């Protein structure tokens, strides 16, 4: 099951620029697997390699154990929903969806019944005889999905299918897409640069940065336990703070962070006193207390308060560090207040470590 679609040490350069720099992934049958990363990190390149439009410089792609290297795109049992949909402008919606089955040489009756089924699945029956130029962006996106799914691909590749749409429609289609996946059960490889989209739709996410995979995990773990500073800051908001290990305690070690004082942490990897670390602290894991009677080195000043309705965000400067703090409900502190930032123990997370012994 782990090895339904295996991407093994893929490298791809364009000129001198490595678009993919040793990417390995194992994608499971039936899951929604997202490739998440900023623009230019190589997501589309990887998708094009899986679809067969380009070939990797090295590494291989195995689908159900079979190396697909020699197969041209038309022979691969995968279909793509393109970033700009790429609907054929001279064909009606119905003919667009029928294109794949026609190429595969299905019987006429089978084509028309399957196309009708897909039209119903994406709720486009009454638009079937229009041209792509006559339907809206959201409808084009649904047609593109139907046109791909009608071929019953083993893997459906989706390249930022919602990127061109406005926020409202995006949220609506995201729900539809999740429902669609439950209905068809096809393995989805979903490319996006929008972390909220990836978090809400995916079973697992690979976070990519500059041609490499930084971390592959379920959404919850990516958020709660990011393993690199990049992942921590790309997934949601976070505070990245430098600290040093200054001692050990009964069940972990003590880390000193300027502005926050001495905190307890249970590192997942061996660590020694003197090591320098980078910590990720989510804004909602921090809270503010009155700073009047505290150690002056731990007292910060509220710079900015923004009330969002369900929560309030504060920007606090403490020992030359700017911290983002998020609390429930309405603002309890005002600009200029002296506060102390408290950390919910157990939520501290080391995302980078530099050993002192070297």
């Amino acid at each position: 099951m782990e090895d339904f679609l295996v991407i093994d040490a893929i490298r791809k350069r364009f000129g001198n620029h490595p678009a993919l720099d040793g990417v390995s992934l194992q994608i499971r049958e039936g899951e929604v697997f997202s490739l998440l990363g900023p623009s230019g990190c190589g997501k589309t390149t990887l998708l094009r390699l899986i679809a067969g439009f380009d070939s990797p410089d090295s590494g291989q792609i195995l689908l159900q154990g079979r190396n697909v290297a020699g197969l041209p795109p038309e022979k691969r049992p995968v279909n793509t929903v393109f970033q700009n949909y790429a609907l054929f402008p001279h064909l009606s919606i119905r003919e667009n969806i029928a294109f794949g089955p026609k190429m595969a040489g299905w019987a006429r009756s089978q084509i028309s019944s399957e196309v009708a089924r897909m039209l119903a699945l994406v709720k486009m029956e009454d638009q079937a005889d229009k041209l792509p130029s006559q339907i809206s962006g959201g409808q084009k996106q649904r047609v593109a999905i139907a046109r791909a799914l009608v071929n019953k691909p083993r893997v459906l590749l989706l390249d930022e299918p919602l990127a061109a749409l406005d926020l409202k429609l995006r949220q609506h289609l995201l729900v539809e897409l999740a429902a669609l996946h439950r209905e068809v059960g096809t393995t989805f490889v979903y490319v996006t640069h929008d972390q909220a989209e990836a978090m809400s739709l995916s079973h697992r996410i690979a976070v990519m940065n500059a041609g490499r995979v930084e971390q592959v995990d379920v959404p919850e773990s990516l958020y709660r336990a990011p393993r690199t500073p990049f992942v921590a800051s790309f997934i949601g908001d976070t505070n990245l703070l430098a600290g040093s290990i200054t001692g050990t305690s009964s069940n972990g070690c003590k880390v000193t962070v300027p502005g926050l004082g001495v905190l307890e942490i249970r590192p997942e990897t061996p660590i020694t006193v003197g090591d320098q670390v980078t910590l990720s602290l989510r804004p909602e894991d921090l809270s503010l207390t009155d700073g009047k009677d505290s150690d002056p080195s731990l007292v910060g000043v509220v710079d900015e308060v923004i009330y969002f309705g369900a929560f309030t965000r504060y920007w606090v400067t403490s020992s030359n560090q700017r911290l983002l703090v998020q609390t429930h409900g309405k603002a309890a502190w005002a600009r200029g207040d002296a506060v102390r930032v408290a950390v919910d123990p157990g939520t501290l997370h080391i995302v980078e470590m530099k050993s002192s012994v070297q």
Partner: protein
Amino acid sequence: MKSQAKKVCPTEALLTTPSLLWLLAFFAVPAGLVLLLAFRPADLHGGVGSGWSVAAIKAASDPAYLPIWWRTLWMSGVSTLLCLLVALPMGYHLARMPRRWQGIMVLLVVLPFLTNFLIRVFAWKSLLHPDGMVCRGLIAMGLMTEEQQLLYNAGAVVVVMFYVQLPFAILPLYAAAEKFDFGLLDAARDLGAGAARAFWEVFIPGVRGGLVAASLMVFISGVGQYVIPQIVGGVDTEMIGNKIAQRVFSDRNLPEASALSSMLLLGVLALMIANSLRRRLMAKEGPGV
């Protein structure tokens, strides 16, 4: 689609006036004069007599012209077909080249225009001449005997027509291909079409406008041709243009020349009207299912 009755607003009418005047002065009036001339009697001194006569029309309808009309059509048709066959892949590859190269290649395509048309045709004559290098080469390779001729036959006419007209096919096809979204070919491949099938099913419909423009340009300039058959053709490769030229220059029978010209003109006009009707019809109906 909405089909509203178009109302012409005053400024729009004003704006189209210059081009209408231009059309009137340089196209409609001369064409009308030619048509009128066809109904005049010829006088013996090579001029046009007074009064009206259908003699020229009668003469131009002589069945002896039929084989020449037929030859004009098929030679233009074949050279059009050849032009499209070459220009289509050229347009495709031109459009896929890096931008910088596209400009250079288009320049190369139009470069022959810098040489006078007659000189280019005469260059072909010397190329295909029995002492020319093509003939000598083919004879040396044993592909041709001394008795055979490359010149003065329909083949030579079609080849030179093809050469002269090729840029007129490449340019509209390149313009169409340049606007084509090549991502659509990826989509077609992704959906199971082989490279050739994708080209046929997606690229060709995508550049249909350019194809029609190229065909019309090449075909219409072909049916009016008379210099090429005169220079590289023989007695049995005359086209209707040659006949018109003969009536004008040797027989000095302007009315008969006008009658033949009018027939050609009306044929071409019919072709263009049919094309614009087809386009209007397609825009109205949308795609068939």
